[in-house]
């Protein structure tokens, strides 16, 4: 079955003023849709057709650049939309908060590490909170549409939070002020979903 562009759980204007409706609409209906279509095109009629996105990413070093770029773009945006919510923000709680405190020293230290990863990614890419195979949480960043599920990633594991720092994610509203966009992201993080992904 072909990959499908997911519907969002909230309206395009629901994350305003942190992320504006026009950015959300173009990001979802143009960028994410293009990755989805291109991924389907890249696997159609090949032995990869029918594989799950996770399986494709886990063996990405064996696949074409088109599968890497579009498979990453498809997965990353799927995750991105779910870790945001109009009712988001605040701080993580429970098990996730305990794990963050244990691995980073404090919630603030984690935020600082994540902000730095997002701000210093040169060019296009993503910042991640990653749960590694041994359960430890780390912050990483990847270029373009790569992600920690890929076998080529420097830091491998399960991404449980991701921030898109391609300029298309923020340029209409924040222009060159990427740090302002990163700061605003904390107001829309859906910690319930991040916690769910942490517990999987």
């Amino acid at each position, binding site marked *: 079955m072909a990959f499908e562009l997911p519907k969002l759980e909230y309206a395009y204007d629901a994350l305003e003023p942190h992320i504006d409706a026009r950015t959300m609409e*173009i990001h979802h209906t*143009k*960028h994410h849709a*293009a990755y989805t279509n291109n991924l389907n095109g890249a696997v159609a009629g090949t032995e990869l057709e029918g594989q799950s996105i996770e399986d494709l990413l886990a063996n990405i070093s064996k696949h074409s*650049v088109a599968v890497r*770029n579009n498979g990453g773009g498809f997965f990353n945006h799927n995750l991105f939309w779910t870790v945001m919510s109009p009712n988001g923000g605040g701080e993580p709680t429970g098990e996730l908060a305990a794990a963050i405190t244990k691995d980073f020293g404090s919630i603030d230290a984690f935020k600082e590490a994540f902000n730095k990863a997002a701000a210093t990614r*040169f*060019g*296009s*890419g993503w910042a991640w909170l990653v749960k590694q195979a041994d359960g430890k949480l780390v912050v990483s960043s990847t*270029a*373009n*549409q790569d992600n920690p599920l890929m076998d080529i990633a420097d830091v491998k594991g399960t991404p449980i939070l991701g921030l898109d720092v*391609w*300029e*298309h994610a923020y*340029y*209409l509203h924040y*222009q*060159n002020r990427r740090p302002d966009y990163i700061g605003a992201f904390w107001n829309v993080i859906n910690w319930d979903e991040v916690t769910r992904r942490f517990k999987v």
Partner: protein
Amino acid sequence: MNFELPKLPYALDALEPVISKQTMEFHYGKHHQAYVNNLNNLVKGTEFENADLETIVKKSEGGIFNNGAQVWNHTFYFMSFKPNGGGAPSGALAEAINASFGSFDKFKEEFSAAAATLFGSGWAWLVKKADGSLAIVKESNAGNPMRDGLTPILTCDVWEHAYYLDKQNLRPKYIEEFFSILDWDVISARY
């Protein structure tokens, strides 16, 4: 020595409607300026403190390279434009384009394809090789072909900040219109 943002030979609104004044204000006034400022701060106390920009582009790594090459690339990019530009080159560059690509249209097609398919942030380049022939190369992020011994003739910035306010996701439209503001006199002189 302190690097400075170069003055442009045209007004910030002169390239409209291809590149808006707003885009120029951010791209030249903020991004290009930030690369200049960052470079000046980063080279202090390093072996590149008194180096010229070309040396920095060719020899440095990391943050100094990223900012230094972005200063060079943006200056090269902005200096390729003029209001009511466009058309086609003449003289030696036109002959070299015909020899290397078959025709100007073929060159345009190949250059546009390179710019459109560069994944992520970066630059598409027309370069001169040591033997005088021309080639098209793609460079990610701050990449610059001088590091490979090639001579840059023309570049198109395909970082999203170059076109997103004006064209959003429609990068191919930006690339198509880019040709209508080129100053082929300046570009030909580089060849």
